[in-house]
Structures are given as C-alpha cells and as structure tokens.
C-alpha cells in the first residue's frame, strides 16, 4: 500500500516533457518533488504565477510571492506573474496540460466531488471548479477509501459535485485507474496489493483486463 508520498511519486510519472501543470493542495503539491529532472515542466499556480519554484530559503520569504495554497514560494528563471483573469484564461483555454487534485469522491463516469460536505463548514471550491470544467487531463490523487473504510470510487458521487465527467485517471494508495466510458479500468496495483483488495475497496464498476501489473515507482 502506498503512503501519500508514494501516490505523489506514482503521479509524477504521468508528468511528461513540455507539460504545464497545475497542482492542487495536499498530495498533489508533493508531486513537484518527484518529477524527473531531465524533462521540461512548468508549474502554474492559479493565484497568478507560471514557473513556480521551490519554497524560499529561510529569511528569503516574500509576502508578495505565494502559491494558491497561500504558502511562500519562489519563481524560477522564465517565470511570469499575471492577474486572476489571465490565470483562468490559461486554465479555461486549455493551455494548462495537466491538473492534479485531491478528491473526496470520484464516480465511475468521471464525476468528482471535493469541495463540500453538507452539514459541515464549507470553505469553498476555490479554483477547483474552473480546473475540472476545462482541463483535458485531470488526475485525482486520493486514498482509495475514507476513514470509515468506505470506498471513494463510487457508482455515483453522494456529495455535491465539483465537476461532471471530467476525471481521466485516479491514483490511490491501492491502484492506478483510468476512467473509461464503461467504468474504472484497473491499470496498476500498488506494491503488494491484490486485485481482490482493490475490487473490495471499489464500489464503482471496476474493469479488470488480463493480468494487472504492479506499479513501478
């Protein structure tokens, strides 16, 4: 079974040369640490920076330079700053190649719920609804089940949706799954995890074709 770092490592392999990538808060943020060094990638943060670099050195924090998670960051050579409207032009206009974000639930048709639990304090969707409504390539990073052990890969989402039919791939602590028109297609198993375990943890329709390989990190 993967931990959060493992999920991030596996997702990092989905980041291809020449990609502009938007990373959500949580596990997705970790992905930046594991992207291959020999490919060219730029990170966009929807609050207004392209070419985001690592956190600053102690003492070099700049209050005017943060990411969408409100953390202090740095800018790499070739970076640019822009306003929010331009930032979402990049997202809505499909100029960002890959969006990686967390979720509470994903359904077998690619719906995603990640912003609201009725009855609890709702913090808001931030940029997530814009991202999932437009991104051509959306990967969800999440645990396969919730704290009660219930599946988060469902036939239908029970929580209020963030977007419909948009998720392309899900990487969990147990598996890599592709969202197809027929349901979740199991692509890879986490190290030491059996197909049966994944089957048991997946409420939505799971498609198993041939021998499912163990993922290589």
């Amino acid at each position, binding site marked *: 079974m993967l931990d959060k770092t493992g999920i991030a490592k596996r997702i990092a392999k989905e980041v291809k040369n020449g990609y502009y990538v938007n990373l959500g808060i949580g596990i997705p943020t970790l992905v930046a640490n594991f992207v291959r060094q020999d490919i060219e990638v730029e990170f966009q943060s*929807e609050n207004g920076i392209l070419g985001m670099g690592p956190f*600053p050195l102690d003492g070099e924090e700049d209050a005017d330079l*943060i990411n969408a998670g409100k953390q202090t*960051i740095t800018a790499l050579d070739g970076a640019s700053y822009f306003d929010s409207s331009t930032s*979402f032009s990049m997202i809505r206009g499909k100029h960002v190649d890959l969006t990686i974000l967390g979720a509470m639930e994903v359904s077998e048709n690619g719906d995603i719920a990640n912003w609201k639990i009725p009855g609890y304090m709702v913090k808001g*969707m931030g940029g997530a609804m814009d991202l999932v*409504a437009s991104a051509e390539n959306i990967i969800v990073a999440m645990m396969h089940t919730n704290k009660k052990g219930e599946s988060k890969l469902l036939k239908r989402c029970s929580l209020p949706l963030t977007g419909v039919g948009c998720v392309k791939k899900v990487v969990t602590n147990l598996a890599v799954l592709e969202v197809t028109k027929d349901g979740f297609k199991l692509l890879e198993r986490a190290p030491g995890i059996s197909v049966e375990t994944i089957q048991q943890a997946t409420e939505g329709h799971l498609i198993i074709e041939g021998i499912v390989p163990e993922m290589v990190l």
Partner: protein
Amino acid sequence: MINKQVANVKEALKGVSSEMTFMLGGFGLCGIPENAISELADMAVKDLTCISNNAGVDDFGLGLLLQNHQIKKMIASYVGENDEFERQMLSGELDVELIPQGTLAERCRAAQAGFPAIYTPAGYGTEVAEGKETREFDGKMYVLEMAFKADFSFVKAWKGDAAGNLIFKGTARNFNPNMCGAAIITVAEVEELVPVGALDPNQIHIPGIFVQRIFEGKNYEKRIEKRTVR
C-alpha cells in the same frame, strides 16, 4: 493628465455608506487593500456586501470587518482560515455565496469591460449552476454568469502615479487589476506613489482611466499567512 490623487485614505473613502457592495482585491492576505480595510473597520458602515476571493483571517484583512459585524453578505471562492467567519456563517448571521475562482475573476473583468454576462464551463452540473441558464456550444455545456455590480472597488498596487496608473508586484497582483474600473468608484492604494512620468508607459498594468482615486498607503504589514521554507 487627469489627477486622481487624494490626500489620504479618509478622502479616498468619501461616499462609502452602509448597504453598499464592495470589491476587494487580494488572494489570501497577499495584495489586500490594507489601508482601505482598516479605515472601513473604523467607520460606522454596515450591512456591506463584499466581493473578494477570500475573507481574511480572524484578526486581519476582511476578518476585521467581520469582527465588527459590518458584513452582511460575502461573495468569495474560498473562505477557510477564519473562525469568526465560520461562526457567523453557521449561525446564519452572514450570507455567503461561494463561486468558482475563475468565475469570480471574470465577473469582475466583465464589469470592467462592459460585458453584461459571460458563458463559462465552470460549475456546470454542480449546485453553482442551479437556477442559472446553461447552454451548449460545440458540444460542451456552459453556465451564464452575470457581471458584478459594485459601488466601490478597493485595490492595492505596488507603485502608482497621480494619473492613476498602477503596477502590481508578484502574485500580489491577483484580482486587483480585474477589479479596477469594475465598480462605480475604484480606489487604489499604493506602496509608493511616484511622480507622473516616472512609470514606463509600456509597463503599466492598469491605465489610470480605470481608477478614480489613488493615494499612498501607510504602515503596510503585508502579513504572510503560511510561511514555508525549504
């Protein structure tokens, strides 16, 4: 050159009154109009509607107006990091409209640019689209979202001149440029007011025509919400 300079924040906020709708720039605590918010907190205005991406933290940013119970309605995309906000929201004291961040930016920009409404894919199929017109273009569904209408925009820039020209810095730019000219009166506070002619006309982010009043702000705290280092 049309002079937009006013002496101080008091003069800049002339005409502000209860029940008005404000736009306020900033993302988290980054690039917020600190002087305007601080002055509003000292004024006896209430029942305000505030359009801002976030709602500040308990003791800074819009949190100051929340503590005073000056805000009636908040239109934002993300409102975490604020206990008083949560309390007022759950008690029903505060009306909250959560909208997608890109929609927020573009509804401001639409108001600035004279567009009545926009079609955006964000929120289609979710509760954000409930009660709104939806429409298909080229096989994809979009939601019709209306331009905002506001009385004042409060924005914060890095440098500016008396003509109202503005230059922002880093990610403190965010919603600030999109809110300029999007309300009846745009009030810009700047860290440094430079002489007219000192700014390169090629590098101005917001031309002065979108700004009605400008002043050099004081005592910027520029608080960092989440200090993270390597």
